[in-house]
């Protein structure tokens, strides 16, 4: 029973570790200073007509006097398209990565759905009978997708240049997850063992579970702990790159929160060292100086 107990702890530990590291990563980004505006059009929260050709409110005369209160929803929908069908990879599929990458991503999504299903079944005390199907599709897509990406990265010299052993290791780990899932599914076709393990974690009651199922979960749980430390967690970065940088077109008004934040940031010291930078000044003082006479004395 000791190993079963260990696996119950691992179930919670992996979830806790994942949430802790992911939260840390999010906080680290949100704690960064307010970036200067640096948007790229099309910006999804523009009106539909403008969005189609990439227009902005700056196409109008006197735009600063007109209030703009864009909704965040169109941006979130645009990001969702990236998550659901990898929109940009599909459109600009330079290396034929779209189909296989989509397969791997959907393998992951459906893999999570399989766990979700088992959780719901445990909580409701019912069995929908869907698990073998969802898991079967998830593991097959995931295994095919991840193995195909590995093959692509190993055989295409240009992609190979940008592939480091750590990438192959990560992809290999993902592939292993799915392959173990397939083997487990073949040995436990009703997924009763799979559900039993999920139930044991939720109820803290160790029960016997087929070893292959436990190995599958162990590899998955270790992956959950490891993943947030890698760029596999790019799905979190995506919200910030798009919503808070590339589509952040909000202009500043006097006395607003952004205005106060900028004022505070202008008080940061500048320790850059080039001759045209005046030593010992804040950002605002740097802007007010020219660095001409001052720099010459350096």
């Amino acid at each position, binding site marked *: 029973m000791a190993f079963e107990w260990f696996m119950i702890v691992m179930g919670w530990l992996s979830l806790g570790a994942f949430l802790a590291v992911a939260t840390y990563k999010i906080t680290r*980004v949100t704690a*960064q*200073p*307010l970036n*200067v*505006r*640096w948007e*790229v*059009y099309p*910006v999804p929260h523009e009106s539909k007509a403008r969005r189609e*050709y*990439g227009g*902005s*409110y*700056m*196409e*109008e*005369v*006197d735009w*600063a006097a007109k209030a703009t209160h864009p909704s965040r929803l169109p941006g979130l929908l645009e990001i969702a398209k*990236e998550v659901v069908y*990898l929109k940009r990879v599909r459109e*600009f599929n*330079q290396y034929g990565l779209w189909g296989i*990458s989509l397969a791997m991503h959907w393998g992951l999504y459906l893999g999570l759905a399989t766990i979700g299903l088992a959780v719901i079944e445990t909580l409701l005390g019912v069995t929908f009978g869907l698990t073998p199907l969802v898991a079967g599709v998830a593991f097959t897509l995931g295994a095919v997708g991840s193995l195909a990406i590995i093959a692509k990265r190993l055989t295409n010299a*240009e*992609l190979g*240049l*940008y592939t*480091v*052993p*750590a990438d192959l290791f990560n992809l290999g780990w993902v592939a292993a997850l799915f392959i173990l899932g397939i083997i487990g599914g073949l040995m436990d076709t009703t997924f009763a063992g799979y559900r039993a393990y999920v139930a044991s974690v939720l109820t803290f009651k160790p029960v016997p579970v087929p070893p292959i199922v436990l190995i599958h979960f162990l590899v998955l749980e270790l992956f959950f702990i490891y993943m947030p430390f890698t760029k596999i967690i*790019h799905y979190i*970065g*995506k919200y*910030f*790159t798009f919503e*808070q*940088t590339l589509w952040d077109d909000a*202009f*500043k*008004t*006097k006395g607003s929160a*952004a*205005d106060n934040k*900028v*004022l505070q940031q202008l008080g*940061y*010291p*500048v320790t*850059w060292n*080039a001759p*045209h*930078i005046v030593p010992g000044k804040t*950002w605002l003082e*740097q*802007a007010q100086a*020219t*660095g*001409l006479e001052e720099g010459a004395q350096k």
Partner: protein
Amino acid sequence: MTKRLTQFKEMASLSNEPIAQITADDLPPIPGIAQPAIPAPRPRWLDTYDFSLDGFSDFEIPAPKTDEEKKRIVEGFFRGLEKLFDPENNWTFVKAFRLSMDYCVRCQTCSEACHTYVGSGHQEIYRPTFRSEILRRIYQRYYTTSGKLLPAFYGADIEVNFKTVWRLLELSYRCNLCRRCVMMCPVGVDNALIAREIRKLFSQELGIAPVELLKKGTRQQLQVGSSTGMRPNAMKSLVSDMEDQIEEKIGRRIEIPVDKKGADILLIHNAGEFLSWPENPAAFAILFDAAGINWTLSSEMLGYDGVNYGVWFDDVELARVALRHLQIARDLGVKKVVVGECGHAHKAMMVIADRVFPGDLCISEMPRESCLPLLYQIAASGRVKFDPSRNNFPITLHDSCNVVRLMGIVKPQREIIKMICAQPLREMTPHGVWNYCCGGGSGFAIMNSLNFGDWRKNVSSRMKVQQIMAVFADVLDPSINKYVIAACSNCKGTIRDAQGHYGLWDQYHIHYGGLVDLMVNAMADLPKPYLEWPEA
């Protein structure tokens, strides 16, 4: 010739041999154009300057000879790299920079977006991700535990020596910062920003930047008033010359308002226009006069030169120049600033400087606008009568990246064209926010030291020339004059150089010019055409 896949480790090669060779044979052909030869760097340069990236350079800075000098640059590079990640020293961009450094999944979806990479015949070193990946690997090797412990596993095994650092500097000036690649990235990674951060590191920490951008650029602008070297008195006398020229052309004298307190609009041009294309600021004057606009120019230092080269390489210089522009507008008591036909000045004043200054210099207090919506308003108002038949020749429109992709001003210029031209606009493929950069973006238009101009004309401008040729393919006959509208000074300068290099006027009568020039050419009550074509 088969393309060679440059490896990252070659960045550290101690040899002076370029790690990538650009030959005319590798470049994609432009139908209708015989590729001119690409001259080799002059032999006397080779002993003094560093050409070890790709055989081109704008850095007329003697390559360091002693180990001490080399060490100083490498150490400065590392100090600067640390500061890029520091929220105080780099508050302006650290958030976006970190995100782009952390989340690239190396899928290369962005590659084909790049006109330089494609235009070079897919030279690996110009791929949008190449330089970013080097910086990432260097950072990982020297600043992360994982990279220090397992460098080979993480690919963090690029050695950093003087050559690596210098090649990376050069490489940061092989990207136009056009940010077309950003649009294609599924993660929102910004390789252009990384290129700019590398430039910034060298400028702000070591004072190393192309002479045209720093010494003769922002430094000169802050010192004498303009990066062209033009001082306030020279500006005033150019304005009075312009009044004479206008009188000669339109048969009546217009007084161009300068330093008029309380005007509605302060119009700021790129000062290069006064010198290279005075017909453009003159056209603004004619049109504004006809439309009854209450406007003024400024003769204050910097007030007559809207350029802000800091946008391309240095945040401190960016802030200094932007601050002075806005203070001049405030002191004049104008209602708003309108930026003339200069793309990067648009972006500097309206987008970037928006979050560089607080309070009274906020956009809500001192509005800044593009000239394009205003020109459209004039055209649509009926206050000025236009006769489109005066512009009866094939036209195309080159979109300035700064104005379209980076500000979303796409439609007004197209609406104007419909009202003032007899023939329908020939849109390039691609165009609008998807346009290709002219090849002169981010300072390249004015960078002509050593053989950098050869690189620009042959590599970064190539796709634009290909587009221009394609859009006029059915009217190439030189008996038909054709016009490329470029409402941006730097784009105009780049197209002018490409025009000369590829013989676009001599062979095909393809010319270029501003949008407002074309508007004035269509003004129904002018006695003669405003536009002047080059001598046949």
